[in-house]
C-alpha cells in the first residue's frame, strides 16, 4: 500500500516521459534509421541504402554551399552577437542614465519571430527602395547596398539580421553576469591598482567565463537550427546561395521527395549540435548536482 502510493510521483512524470522518450529519442532513432534506407516520398524500411545517403549529402553541391554558409554565418553570428552584447553590457554597466529604456530597446528584437525579422530586413535591404535609397536621398549619392540580390553577399544579410535579433539577449546574459560579480573582488582589484580597461581585461572579463560559455552554446545551437530567418529573408536565394543545413534538409525531405537524404542531413545537424551541447550539459549537470 505504502509502496504503491510512493510511486505517485514517478507515475505523474510518466506521461511527459513517454512523450519525450517517443518524440525526442524515438524520433531521433527513426530518423537515423531512415537515413540508411531508400525512402523517397514516404518512409520505407524494407530497402536499405546504407551510408550512401551520407555520401550523397556530402557530395552534393548544395550541401557544400550550406556548410560554407553555415561556417560564415555561425562564426559571424556568434562572434557578432558576443561582441555587440559584451560591448553594450559593459557600456550599460557604467551607471548610465535611462539604462532601463536602452535595455528595453536592445532586447525587444528577441520578442519578435525570425519571420518578422526576416520580412522587416528584407524590406530594409531592398535596393532602390530601402536603406540604399534613404542614404542616396540624404546626400550620399554613390551609396550602394544591394547585398541581398548578390549571391556572394546575401549570406551576410542573414548575419546582419541575425545579429540584430540576438545581440540583446547576449547583452542581457552579460549584464546579469556583470551585476553578479562579487563587489569585494572589484574593490580588491581597485586597491591593487587596476582601473578602467585593465580592470575589465584582467578582472571582469575572466569572471564572465560562464556567461561566455552559455552565450556560445545557445547562439551556436541557434545557428545550427536556424531556418525561419533565411526562409523569410532570402528564401535561400538568390539561387541557393544562402542555403543552410536546415533549408537543405527541408528542401530534400519535403520538396524533392528525397526523404532518406533529408534524414541524413538532419542527422548531420544533430551531430553538430551534440558536439556543442553534450560537453556543456555534462559539465552543467555535474556541477549543478546538489
Amino acid at each position, binding site marked *: 500500500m505504502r509502496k504503491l502510493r510512493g510511486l505517485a510521483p514517478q507515475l505523474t512524470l510518466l506521461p511527459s516521459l513517454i512523450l519525450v522518450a517517443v518524440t525526442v529519442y524515438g524520433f531521433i532513432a527513426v530518423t537515423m534509421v531512415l537515413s540508411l534506407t531508400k525512402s523517397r516520398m514516404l518512409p520505407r524500411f524494407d530497402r536499405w541504402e546504407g551510408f550512401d545517403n551520407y555520401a550523397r549529402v556530402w557530395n552534393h553541391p548544395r550541401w557544400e554551399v550550406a556548410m560554407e554558409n553555415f561556417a560564415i554565418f555561425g562564426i559571424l553570428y556568434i562572434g557578432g552577437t558576443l561582441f555587440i552584447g559584451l560591448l553594450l553590457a559593459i557600456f550599460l554597466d557604467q551607471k548610465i542614465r535611462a539604462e532601463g529604456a536602452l535595455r528595453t530597446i536592445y532586447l525587444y528584437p528577441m*520578442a519578435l519571430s525570425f519571420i*518578422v525579422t526576416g520580412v522587416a530586413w528584407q524590406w530594409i535591404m531592398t535596393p532602390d527602395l530601402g536603406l540604399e535609397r534613404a542614404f542616396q536621398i540624404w546626400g550620399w549619392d554613390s551609396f550602394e547596398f544591394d547585398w541581398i540580390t548578390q549571391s556572394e553577399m546575401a549570406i551576410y544579410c542573414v548575419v546582419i539580421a541575425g545579429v540584430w535579433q540576438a545581440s540583446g539577449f547576449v547583452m542581457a546574459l552579460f549584464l546579469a553576469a556583470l551585476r553578479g560579480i562579487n563587489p569585494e573582488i572589484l574593490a580588491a582589484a581597485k586597491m591593487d591598482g587596476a582601473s578602467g580597461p585593465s580592470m575589465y581585461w584582467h578582472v571582469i572579463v575572466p569572471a564572465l567565463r560562464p556567461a561566455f560559455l552559455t552565450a556560445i552554446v545557445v547562439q551556436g545551437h541557434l545557428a545550427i537550427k536556424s531556418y525561419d530567418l533565411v526562409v523569410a529573408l532570402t528564401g535561400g536565394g538568390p539561387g541557393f546561395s544562402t542555403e543552410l543545413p536546415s533549408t537543405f534538409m527541408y528542401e530534400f525531405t519535403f520538396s524533392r521527395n528525397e526523404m532518406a537524404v533529408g534524414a541524413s542531413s538532419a542527422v548531420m545537424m544533430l551531430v553538430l*549540435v551534440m558536439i556543442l551541447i553534450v560537453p556543456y550539459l555534462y559539465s552543467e549537470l555535474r556541477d549543478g548536482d546538489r
Partner: protein
Amino acid sequence: MATARNRASFERGFVYLVLLLSAAFFLMPLIAMIFTSLKSMPEITGAAGFENNTILTPPKEPSVAAWGAAWSSACIAVACEGLRSYFWNSVLMVVFAVAISVMLGAVNGYVLSKWRFRGDNIVFGMLLFGCFIPFQIVLIPMARLLGILDIAGTIPGLVFVHVCYGIPFTTLFFRNFYVTIPDELVKAARIDGAGFWSIFFLILLPISTPIFVVAIIWQFTGVWNDFLFGASFAGADARPLMVALNNLVNTSTGTKTYNIDMAGAMIAALPTMLVYIVGGRYFVRGLTSGAVKG
C-alpha cells in the same frame, strides 16, 4: 587635473554615443516597419509628390488602409481574406499549447525537485537534452505520428507538437524554481497530513506565480513565433500566422505591396511585443534561465 577630467568626460561621451547609435540601429527596423505600414504604395516607391520619401521618413499621409488590408483582404495563396483567420488559428494553438505544456512542466518540476528518486537526475538530463535538439531531426517521424493519431494538419496536431517540445523547457523552469523552495516546507506538509497533490496545489502552487509568468511568456513567444512546425505540419485550415505572413510576403504574385507586408509583420509581432513590454522582467528571466541552469 583638468586634462584628467576632460579625458573622463570624453570617455563618458563616447560611451553614450555608442549606446545611442546602437539604440538607433536596434530601433531602425521597427520604425521602418511602422512608417511603411502607414504609407501608400506611391509614397513608398517615391512616386511624384513623394520624391524625398525614404523608409525612415514619417508618412506624409498616414493611413491604416494597409493594416485593414493585411488583416482582412490581402491575398495569401488563393484566398484573399487577409491574416485574420490565421491570427485566430495561432491564438487557439497558443492557448492550448501553452496551458498544457506549462501545467505538465509544473508537475514535472515539482516531482523532479521535491520527490527525488533513484535516477531522477538522469531523467532530468534526458529532458534537458530535449531543449537543444535541432527540430529537423524529428520532422519526418512526427509527420507520420500525427497521421497515425489522425491529427495531421490540424490545430490539435500542432498543439501536440508544441507540447512535446515545450515540456523540456517548462520542466526546466519549474524544476529550477522549486529547488530554491526549502524541502522542509514539503516535509512539514507531509507530517501535517498533506499528500502528493495537496502539497502541490495547496503549498507550492500559491507561491509559483513568478515562475508561471516566466514559463507562460516563454512558451507563448516560442509557440507564437514558431514557423518550422507550422510550415511542416499545418493543413490549409490550420495554418498559423507566421506561415501565413511568410506566404503573404514571399509567395504572392504581382507587385509587392510593402505597406501591407509591413502591416502584416506588425500584426504578427504585436502580441509578443506586448507581452515583452508588459512582462519584460519575466521575459528576460525566462530567456536567461532558459539558457542557463538554475
